[in-house]
Each structure stands twice: as structure tokens, then as C-alpha cells.
């Protein structure tokens, strides 16, 4: 028995998914949106990026399905009690990683702890040595001799599995392509492998293959070892960095979702209505802009802290507290970042307002609401889209910095910023504890790079000025 828990950010994440899906459906019916998207999908870098982004999104979504597990029933007929800990589907899937904690630091693939401990031997003598890990490599009888062989076997198994998986994917893609293009399966697979498809399926397959390999490696290795080591309290770093994905995605997307209605409404209103409304909106965004972003966020987060610490009764679990802070961070980041889009939209609306087709609509007696809805909004949507995808990677990076400054997400929440922040203090150690940084770096860099490449393609496809070149 489980009790589903819907956190604030979960609800918004699923709202966002709904918005994106309906946008996709809408875009399919409009050639002016379909053509540029086809452009995006046609680019090799962009389609590889999309695959990677989708993997991140799936992990993030799995981590957004929260529940509380029922406690062991101690008798029939009694009310079911649920555990205090809120878990997600991802936690369930990563169960072994989540629960197998060590005592303290251990390096990647280690079988022994990173620090020496005094061991009391049965004969009463004491030695300082590196003790065996509880979980990491526990199946090995003698790590000294068995380790290398075990790794080889596991890597080989993973390679084989990945190959099979990729083959399966190829057939699936082939079937899909064959049904669409009404060719034989063999022809479809040949054209995928030869790279003759309009959407670069070969690149997509290659990306999927690499991801399949990584997945199989993780499957085979992380169940037996801590592939990215453990942190100070012995938690698996790989688990932490996977959990951080949701935080990064939520910051990158919800911030935009929160600010979008304001930015669009205010921007178009300012440009279209002009006069005192324009003056007022310009005043608001100049004022907000003039406060350095970090300081405004700091001030707001500090105030939230004061509020939360004075009203503990409103937040039941630690996760809820962390969640409300995450949401608040999104809102406040949204407040500091909507001004840019608002200004762009204002400028564009000012320009559109003078365009002949809007004058024509006015001369036909079309109402203001209809002019805004039918003429202005569809003609500024590309700006909104470009801004949204461009902002994403910046926001993911900003999360790390803010967490470092101490005004980011809750310190108890898994996030790359928190990982970097805690690992940074260990840089001075000899020898250096580097694995937390490395895993945070790898996962964050991959996400941001994919997002950047994707947004580049989107901008190239949608920006009419760039298209002319």
C-alpha cells in the first residue's frame, strides 16, 4: 500500500508537461511552427541533444512521482500507517543505491574506506588500516585478486547487453520508419544505417547506443560498487547526482513557466497599449532589474527562512519544507528573469502595432482582444520559445551558484550546487576528495551542453533574421 504525495513542484511539473504536450499538438497543425521544428529535428547535433535531454526528463519525471510507503502492518483491521519519509518512483528503482550507505568517504569503485580506522582485532591488538566497505565490492572474497576480473566481466556483460539493446532499438526505429515511409523493413534499416533519413536517425541511434551502454554499465556496476564513490556520510554519490537531476530541471523549467504569463501579458500590453500603461510597466521592470539579481534572491530567501522557521507547523515533512523553498526559488528567479523577455516582447509589439496587417485588422473593425490574440501573440511566440530554451541552461547553472552562495535550494535537498558546495570544502584535503565534484560536473555539463546545442538549433530555426543568412 502506498499513499501518493503531490508536492507543489510535482503539480507544476505535470502542469508543464501538459502545456508542452498541448503545444506540440498545436504546433503540428501550424506550418509556420512545423517547418522550423522540422529544421531542428533535421540537425544532427540538435537531435542527439534532444535524446539526451529526454533521458534527463524521464529521470526527472520519475523523481516527481512521490509517495509514502505503508508501514509494516502489525495486525488486521487496524488503520494503515504510512512512513514519514516521502519517496519517489526513482527512489524505488534505485533502492539499492539509496539504502546502501557506507560509514564515510570512499572513492569510486573502492572496496575499502578512504580513511584509516583503528581496528580492534580479536587478539586485542590494534591496527590502523583501511576497513572493507559494507556494500562496495562485498561479493568479492579477496578484492586484491578478484577485483580486476570482476570489473572485466561486468563491463563485458554490459557491453553485450548494450549491443543487444541497440540492435533492438534499430529494429524498432526501422519498423517505425518502414510504417511511415511505406517501405520494407530492410530498406528502412538500410537507409537508417546509411544516414539517408530526413531526421538523422543514425545519429539518434548512435546517441541511444551510447546511452544504452552507460545504462547497462550502471546497471551492472553500481549494484556492486559505488561507481562515483560515497560522500562524507557514506551516501552513494551516483544516487545523489541522479536525484539532483530533478532539482536542476525544476529550476530550469518551472522558473520559466512561472514567469511566462506575466512576461507575455505585460510585454504585449506595454507595447500595444502604450501611454501610461507602457510607462508603468517599464517602471516596474526597470525597478526590478536595477536590483542585483543575487541580492534580491538572497533577500527573498532570507525572508522565507525567517518565515518558515517561525511557522514550523505549516510544513509537515522536511521534504515539504525543501519543496516550498524550491518553489519559492523558482518564483523569485522568475521575478528577476521575466524582465528580459518582457522588454523583448514590448519592443516587438511596438513594431507589430505599426505593421500594415494590424492596421488592416483595425480598419476592418477587429477588436483589441482579437488583434492581440490573433495577430500579435502568434507573431511573438517565436521570441517566447527562443527565450525559454535559451534561459534553461542559464537557470541550471544559476542554481549551482545560488546554492553555493547559500540562497539556493534547501541544504538537505539533492542538487548539483549542494554537491559542489560540500565537496569544495574537501578540496584542501590531502589526498583530494574529487569524485563528488566530478560526478556533479559530468551530469551538469552534459545537461547544459545538450540544452545549449538544442537552443542554438531552435534559435537558428525560429529567428527570422538568422534564417535569411
Amino acid at each position, binding site marked *: 500500500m502506498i499513499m501518493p504525495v503531490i508536492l507543489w513542484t510535482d503539480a507544476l511539473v505535470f502542469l508543464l508537461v501538459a502545456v508542452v504536450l498541448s503545444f506540440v499538438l498545436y504546433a503540428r497543425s501550424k506550418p509556420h511552427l512545423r517547418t522550423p521544428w522540422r529544421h531542428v529535428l533535421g540537425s544532427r547535433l540538435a537531435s542527439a541533444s534532444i535524446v539526451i535531454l529526454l533521458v534527463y526528463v524521464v529521470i526527472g519525471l520519475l523523481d516527481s512521482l512521490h509517495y509514502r510507503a505503508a508501514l509494516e502492518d502489525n495486525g488486521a483491521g487496524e488503520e494503515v500507517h504510512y512512513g514519514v519519509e516521502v519517496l519517489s518512483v526513482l527512489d524505488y528503482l534505485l533502492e539499492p543505491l539509496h539504502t546502501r550507505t557506507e560509514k564515510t568517504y570512499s572513492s569510486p569503485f573502492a572496496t575499502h574506506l578512504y580513511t584509516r580506522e583503528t581496528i580492534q582485532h580479536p587478539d586485542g591488538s590494534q591496527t590502523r588500516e583501511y576497513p572493507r566497505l559494507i556494500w562496495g565490492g562485498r561479493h568479492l572474497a579477496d578484492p586484491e585478486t578478484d577485483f580486476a576480473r570482476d570489473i572485466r566481466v561486468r563491463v563485458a556483460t554490459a557491453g553485450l547487453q548494450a549491443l543487444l539493446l541497440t540492435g533492438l532499438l534499430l529494429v524498432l526505429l526501422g519498423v517505425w520508419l518502414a510504417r511511415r515511409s511505406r517501405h520494407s523493413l530492410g530498406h528502412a534499416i538500410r537507409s537508417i544505417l546509411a544516414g539517408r533519413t530526413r531526421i538523422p536517425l543514425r545519429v539518434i541511434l548512435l546517441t541511444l547506443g551510447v546511452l544504452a551502454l552507460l545504462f547497462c554499465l550502471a546497471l551492472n556496476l553500481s549494484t556492486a560498487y559505488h561507481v562515483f564513490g560515497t560522500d562524507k556520510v557514506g551516501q552513494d554519490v551516483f544516487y545523489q547526482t541522479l536525484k539532483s537531476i530533478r532539482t536542476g530541471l525544476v529550476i530550469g523549467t518551472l522558473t520559466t513557466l512561472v514567469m511566462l504569463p506575466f512576461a507575455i501579458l505585460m510585454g504585449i500590453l506595454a507595447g500595444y497599449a502604450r501611454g501610461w500603461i507602457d510607462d508603468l510597466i517599464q517602471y516596474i521592470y526597470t*525597478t526590478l532589474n536595477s*536590483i542585483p539579481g*543575487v541580492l534580491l534572491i538572497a*533577500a527573498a530567501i532570507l525572508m522565507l527562512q525567517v518565515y518558515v522557521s517561525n511557522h514550523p507547523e505549516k510544513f509537515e515533512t522536511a521534504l515539504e519544507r525543501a519543496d516550498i523553498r524550491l518553489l519559492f526559488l523558482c518564483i523569485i528567479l522568475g521575478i528577476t528573469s521575466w524582465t528580459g523577455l518582457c522588454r523583448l516582447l514590448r519592443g516587438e509589439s511596438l513594431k507589430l502595432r505599426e505593421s500594415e496587417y494590424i492596421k488592416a485588422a483595425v480598419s476592418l473593425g477587429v477588436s483589441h482582444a482579437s488583434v492581440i490574440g490573433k495577430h500579435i501573440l502568434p507573431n511573438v511566440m517565436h521570441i517566447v520559445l527562443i527565450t525559454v530554451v535559451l534561459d534553461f541552461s542559464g537557470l541550471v547553472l544559476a542554481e549551482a*551558484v545560488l546554492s553555493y*552562495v547559500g540562497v539556493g535550494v534547501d541544504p538537505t535537498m539533492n542538487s548539483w550546487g549542494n554537491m559542489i558546495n560540500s565537496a*569544495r570544502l574537501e578540496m584542501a584535503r590531502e589526498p583530494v576528495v574529487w569524485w563528488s565534484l566530478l560526478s556533479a560536473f559530468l551530469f551538469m555539463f552534459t545537461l547544459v551542453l545538450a540544452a545549449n546545442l538544442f537552443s542554438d538549433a531552435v534559435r537558428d530555426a525560429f529567428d527570422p533574421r538568422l534564417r535569411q543568412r
Partner: protein
Amino acid sequence: MFAYIVRRVAYAIPILIGVNLLTFYLFFVVNSPDDMARLHLGVKRVTPEAIDKWKVERGYDKPLLYNEAVSGSAKLTHTIFFEKSVKLFAFDFGHSDDGRDISHDIQQRMKPSLAIAIPTLLVGLLINITFAMLMAFFRGTYVDVSGVILCVVLMSISAMFYIIGGQFLLGKLLRLMPISGYDTGLDAFKFLVLPVVIGAVSGIGAGSRMYRSFFLEEANKDFVRTARAKGLKESLVLFRHVLKNAMIPIVTGVVVVLPMLFLGSLLLESFFAIPGLGSYTIDAINRQDFAIVRAMVFLGSVLYILGLILVDMAYTVVDPRVRLS
């Protein structure tokens, strides 16, 4: 020109009032001074007397907007709003929550901040323009394409990794320079090299790419064709015609951030333990020193507005089409 500046300054006042009202609301209305006191004193020692004492020490014991207890104009001036917010307009920042003179601190810490920020800006500008020119010169070729991809890769790395990586590589492994710290006078140099290099390098990706697009934007204009039709060399076309026009957005983009340099860089200063305004701000946030945060918010907005005024003036210098009126 003078009249224009006066007008712009006058225009800044409502914005500063807005900033002040907003911070006042955030710091004193959303949470009362009592709440802040409780947070600072911790849960254990919280007695009404301790709270009152804490408030009196920091001048938070007055009413927010209107003081019934006194007479005359003091009704308005003996209030938190007047003491803490209105006085900012006179650049009277008051004292921090632990009793230090904020104005004095700011003056002290400005210098190290500038010592990092200005060289970082200049070095970065030089590198970015050079890179961007190279890419623009080879536009459409593999040099350009791989340059752009390199830029995207570079800008996908968080600034914190640049710092950590730089400290680790240059400071720890190669031992070329001290990892962190600061000194006054000429000795500061060896402490400054690493942060400046890292600061400049971390900006290459985004900067070069943006400048490249400025160059390409100009390179596609009609007058460039005119210049080629005159028989000019490609390098002359690029330097004389393209660069000169592309410098307009570059220069104005730099000018607008100039005043903000005073605030220093949060990350660089805190990682390298440089006693500038950036680390001052971070320390204040971590100590939850509201007085300093408030002062920095105000200072930041003043500098931002100053940047806007400067950029308007810069336009008249670099762009003959713009004239202030």
C-alpha cells in the same frame, strides 16, 4: 548634455524610491523585526527581554511608518522607515547588525573588488574580440564552425568548475601561484593573476560567441558590399567597416556594466578569499546580516542606473547617429 544628465538623474529617483519601498516591504513588513530577532537569537534564548534588547541595539524598536509617541516632524523621522530606508538616499548606510560602519566597510572593500574586476574585464574583452574576429574572418569554414562549438562547450561549464579546476591545476598541481588570499600594494599582483585569468577564461564561451554574432550581423550589411566594390582588402573591410560598427554594441555592453564592477564578483572573491565587496555580500548573506544586504541592494540599484546613464552617453561617442536631447 548637462541638462540631459540632470534629467536622467531626476528620472532615477522614482526607481530608487521603488527599490527602497520593495526592500522595506521585504525586510520589515513580510517579517516583523521580532521575527528577525528570534531568528538571530536562536530558539533557546528567546525571551521578550532579549528580543527587545536586540531591537534597541540595532534601532529596530521604533514603529514602522508613523511614531505616535513623539511630536512634530519626529513623528515621521523617528521610524524604521525613515531611519533605515530614507537615509539611504543620503548614502547613509548605518551600521551592520554586528555594529560595524557599513559605509566604511564599503569604501575599504571597493579597491580589491576593482583590482580583480577591471583586469578581468579588459583581458576578457581582448580575448573575446580576437576570437570573434578570427571566427568572423573564417566565417562559414571549419575554423568558424569548430570555434562556435568550442564556445558552446565552454559556456556549458559552470563558472564554479572553472574556479575549482583553475585552483586545482594552476595553484595546487603546478604551484604557479597562491591558491587564494590577498595582500595590499604591489604584492597583491601574485594573488590577482589566478582569479583574473580564471575570470577571463570563464567568460570566453559566451562572450566570443556573442561578439561573433555582432560581427556577422554587420558583415551582411550593404555598406560592406560597397566597401568591397571599392576594391578594399578583406582585412581592411573587416577592421575598418565591420569592426567599427560592431564596436557599438560591444562598447555599450561594456559601459553598462562598468559601475557594477564596484560590487565585485561573488564567486571569484569568495573562492579566492579576496576581501572585496563580493565576499562582503556573501558573508552578510551567510551571517544573515540584513542591514548589509539592504545597503548592497540600494548601492546596486544606484550603480545599475548609473550604468544606464553612462551607456546613453557612450552611444553619443561611438555612434554618430545618436545625439542626446
